[in-house]
């Protein structure tokens, strides 16, 4: 078990390192940063001055190592646009996005897992069909359009919820629905298929042969085994949500990481963009690592090796 954890951790760490290189190179190779920062009207001398000021004249490898060394201490330099350090900006915006992501994931799981179980148990029945139709329809709706539609219905017409911002919990309801929406079909399908596989297994027949009541068979014997892959998927989906929050935060004007990234990209504030890319990727890698651990713990075949 310890060996398993160590090996997984090694892989996660090396993926994170590679991602940092990719994130770094992506921004440095897509064009002349100095030119981009100085702006199109700057004279060549001004561009050169910017180049030296931001250390862009140094060899790429040196720039990368400087940046990485800083990143390890959460020092991502200063924002070009905001008069703050990148770390302070990120720390300020982070809670909004994490809260939004957590609520969205919670909502998605709360809807998708019971729906998947009910669909599997009533395989081929109307609930199953309706759930599958809902999945296909749901996946076709663009997140930002869903967000706008929610605003129109619940904020403008019904006046139940505030239009935008992130001041109170009520501000989080619609964004969380818009963000969690896309995760529901995937989780529901995985739960449904997992339940179908498990329900057809020999040990479910054994459990029924013992005369156990149907709820015990369903929840103790079936769901416990069917839910294992859902954990990994939930972690992956949470990572996607943090990435996707950029769209939702833009629609609902929530001042989280995604909104910050959008502003920073628009203003060519690259230290901020780099930091957020690295941060989101690291969170994703951390989450998948965590999911591996939870999976190992849930499955005695790995836990008690």
């Amino acid at each position, binding site marked *: 078990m310890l060996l398993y954890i160590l090996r997984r951790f090694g892989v996660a760490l090396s993926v994170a390192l590679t991602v940092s290189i990719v994130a770094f190179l992506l921004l440095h190779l897509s064009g002349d940063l100095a030119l981009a920062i100085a702006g199109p009207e700057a004279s060549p001398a001004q561009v050169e001055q910017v180049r030296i000021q931001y250390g862009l004249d140094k060899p790429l490898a040196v720039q990368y190592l400087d940046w990485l060394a800083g990143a390890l201490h959460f020092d991502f330099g200063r924002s070009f646009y905001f008069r703050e350090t990148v770390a302070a900006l990120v720390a300020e915006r982070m809670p909004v996005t994490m809260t939004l992501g957590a609520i969205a994931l919670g909502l998605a799981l709360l809807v998708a897992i019971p729906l998947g179980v009910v669909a599997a148990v009533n395989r081929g029945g109307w609930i199953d069909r309706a759930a599958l139709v809902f999945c296909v329809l749901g996946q076709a709706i663009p997140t930002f359009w869903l967000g706008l539609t929610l605003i129109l219905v619940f904020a403008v017409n019904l006046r139940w919820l505030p239009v935008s911002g992130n001041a109170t919990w009520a501000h989080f309801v619609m964004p969380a629905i818009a963000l969690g929406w896309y995760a529901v079909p995937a989780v529901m399908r995985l739960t449904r298929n997992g339940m179908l596989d498990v329900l057809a297994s020999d040990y479910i027949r054994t*459990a029924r*042969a013992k005369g156990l009541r*149907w709820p015990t068979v369903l929840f103790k014997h079936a769901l416990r085994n069917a839910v294992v892959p859902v954990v990994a998927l939930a972690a992956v989906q949470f990572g996607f949500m943090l990435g996707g929050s950029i769209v939702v935060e833009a629609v609902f004007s929530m001042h989280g990481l995604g909104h910050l990234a959008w502003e920073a990209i628009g203003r060519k504030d690259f230290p901020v963009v780099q930091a957020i890319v690295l941060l989101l990727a690291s969170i994703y890698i951390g989450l998948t690592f965590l999911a591996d651990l939870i999976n190992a713990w849930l499955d005695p075949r790995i836990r008690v090796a």
Partner: protein
Amino acid sequence: MALLEVDRLTIDIPTEAGLLHAVGGVSFTLERGETLAIVGESGSGKSLTSLALMDLLPSRAIRKAATLRFDGIDLMAAGERQKEDLRGDRMAMIFQEPMTSLNPAYTIGDQLTEALRRHRTVSAKAARERAVHLLERVGITAAASRLGQYPHQLSGGLRQRVMIAMGLMCEPDLIIADEPTTALDVTIQAQILRLLRDLQQEFGMALILVTHDLGVVARVATKVAVMYAGRLVETGTVREVFGAPSHPYTRGLLRSIPVPGRTRPGEPLGTIPGQVPGLVGDVFGCAFRNRCDHAAEACAGAIPERLLGGNHRMACILETVGSPQ
């Protein structure tokens, strides 16, 4: 009154090609203390028959019977809750796949005790004690320490013993063992069979043993039912069926296994040429006729079941009752 009465049990399974008549009109009765062996090759419907008794068939299978009665309780009319109360308590089943029949997520102890705790009011401690006692009875050493282990930590033989102990937890009146020894080594097979027979005699249970192994039947069973293509072709006591095998299929089966003292060394064993026919769609007449040496025109018509004396019955138009050799 017999403990188990089965009259004209049929099982149909809808498939894309049409209705599959997996089991067609199986009838038998079983008393306490008796062991019935249902014999047949794979696909003959013997496992489905045993699952049908427990009402554990796959959901799309259609079960019908004129009578299906357990200790006077009409199983065809019983509600789901009533059947759940019977299962695991008064009728138990031992499955043939020890590797997949235990839930990988729970310990042996948990899976052993849950049937007892479901059907009886016992403390966790008492349930564990009973589990340990039964594990010891099925020949598992260090039984107490096994309770905390997970299925993947046990060998196939141990898991099969756990399955048997699991079936015995509530001291059932009827125990159905579906090929309990196929997955095991020959040496363990003999042990498990002896164990089943001893336990059955000790507790006075009725035992249904589903097997394709005639050697097993001769050692353990009191009654035999030979199954072919979803029908019982010959039934009777072990003495009757083995002493005077009458149906051509039974005779073929007996010829194809070596019998100590009867088969001479070096003598070739018999085989039954041909294949089991498909059972999709309407099936008429004797299903064995395309492999039978004695097949006649009349075999395509209705085949009456005839009493050959005692409890010995067979479904064949053949008049001559011969010996296997």
